[in-house]
């Protein structure tokens, strides 16, 4: 009797949680379901399933946003910046973690200095620097900016070096391997768990970032996907069926990334935040 009651309680508890999950995801249902309706239908029954499925909103959205160009921009900016952040961060962490001289301690402190500085603090001077470098309204300008935030990856790598055995590098040195070669052949591959964490965090930040593209990109040809949503809302604020279709299109790559990387994202949060 008692175990039966316990089972029933379990089932009720789980059903309640599933219901809460569904409520939690309702905004996304609302978003998707209304992209298939015309304006009138969406106004009269926003939560109902569409009476007839129409792809008109998607066609309009796709035509107005130059999807492939923006997707390419987002992809290029994210891929190059993340690669640079990983390489620069890992390289800089290597001497700081391995060399004993106090010069390296001082350099670490120097990198720490800018760690807490919010991006908003340096926006205006950064704008002028980019202007001088002729990198405004240029996706490479964004790559340069994102890459400069390599101190975050530096700290994660530096913290991880302790668990990478130094003996391997030692024996490589005896075999006549210079620091450059031994770093890339032996040490860097062993850093792979942190590299995965850094890649995921940086990809999610850079792909989704709105602040920098908003400030530093001004024409459609350099826009990222997130900027296309911003532009669309400004231009077609009344046609929200089409706006929602734009958002769904922009969300699809993120959704794919999430489905493939879900396990790694969770692992990254676990290792990246609790220990750090």
């Amino acid at each position: 009797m008692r175990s039966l009651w316990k089972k029933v309680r379990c089932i009720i508890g789980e059903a309640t949680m599933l219901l809460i999950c569904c409520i939690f995801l309702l905004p996304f249902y609302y978003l998707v379901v209304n992209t298939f309706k015309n304006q009138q239908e969406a106004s009269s029954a926003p939560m109902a399933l569409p009476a007839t499925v129409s792809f008109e909103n998607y066609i309009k959205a796709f035509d107005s946003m130059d999807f492939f160009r923006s997707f390419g921009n987002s992809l290029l900016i994210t891929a190059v910046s993340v690669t640079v952040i990983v390489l620069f961060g890992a390289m800089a962490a290597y001497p700081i973690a391995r060399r004993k001289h106090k010069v390296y301690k001082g350099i670490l402190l120097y990198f720490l200095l800018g760690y807490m500085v919010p991006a908003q603090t340096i926006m205006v001077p950064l704008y002028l620097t980019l202007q001088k470098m002729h990198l405004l309204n240029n996706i490479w300008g964004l790559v340069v900016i994102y890459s400069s935030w390599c101190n975050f990856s530096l700290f994660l790598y530096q913290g991880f070096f302790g668990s990478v055995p130094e003996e391997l590098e030692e024996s490589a040195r005896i075999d006549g391997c210079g620091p450059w070669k031994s770093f890339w052949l032996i040490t860097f591959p062993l850093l792979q768990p942190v590299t995965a964490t850094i890649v995921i965090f940086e990809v999610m930040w850079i792909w989704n970032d709105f602040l920098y593209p908003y400030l530093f990109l001004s024409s459609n040809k350099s826009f990222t996907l997130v900027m296309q949503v911003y532009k669309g809302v400004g231009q077609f604020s009344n046609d929200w069926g089409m706006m929602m279709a734009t958002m769904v299109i922009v969300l699809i790559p993120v959704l794919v990334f999430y489905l493939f990387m879900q396990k790694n994202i969770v692992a990254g949060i676990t290792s990246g935040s609790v220990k750090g």
Partner: protein
Amino acid sequence: MKFRWKKEVPYLLFLFPAFIAYTALIMWPLLQAFGLPFTDWKGYTMEGLNYVGLKNYIKILGDKEMVYAIKNTIIYAVFNPMLVTVLAVPLAVILNSKMKTKNFQRAAFFFPSVPSALILGYLWSYIMSPLDYGVLNRFVTALGFEPILWLAHPKVALLSVILVSVWNVLGWHACIYIAQLQGIPEDLFEAARIDGATAMQMFFRITLPLLRPAMATSVMLLLINALKIFDLPFALTGGGPGYSTTMLSQVIIQRGFVDKMYGRSMAAAILFCIFVVAVTVIQRKAARED
């Protein structure tokens, strides 16, 4: 210890790329951001600058929008971390129990943390709209209440921003707690159960104290991100109605990039930076003493 250049040069070369990028694009602009608000710099040439003392700081502190922004940002940075923590801890405990669908549930709660906050803000601006397609008010009226001006009423708008932000990051922070919960050995609870502890007692006496490290991390992330918030209110309300949801980041951008008052914008940015660093340091100290 003597610095032996010949031996250290190969290692210094490893530092070189990060050092250059960081110095040129973070430290140099930071130095400028500290120095330029004390001058009458207009954004063009660096020659013939005059020292103006604290004028820019005084002006920005007398700026009505700035005063509202400080107030709003503080309210937001108190309530967002508080609500998220109060909800994320029990949620993590539930999602850590033995449910058949727990993987699906974790994925569902986490999902709003994945897309750009800008897109989520626009999505919620449709949901909270006073027009026909604003489903939230349909729901409210179906329950027999008066429709609420979620985003257009100056007293409600900030609350709406906070609610959406909680929905946005709840799953992420529950995930931080789940990670720590998985490290708590099961026999602790077993022993407590044998001693006749209730579920409530176990939660407050075992789970909560052992979650301290995760809580320190989560609250710090929440606080810093709350102080820096920009995308979400920008998309949801644009800072309005009036200045009721204007945040500090938005004032810095508005003064600097729209009004071209560089001096004031950078003065605001420096105050903002000092504020963020102070909060971070205080929070870290508090977490360590705990």
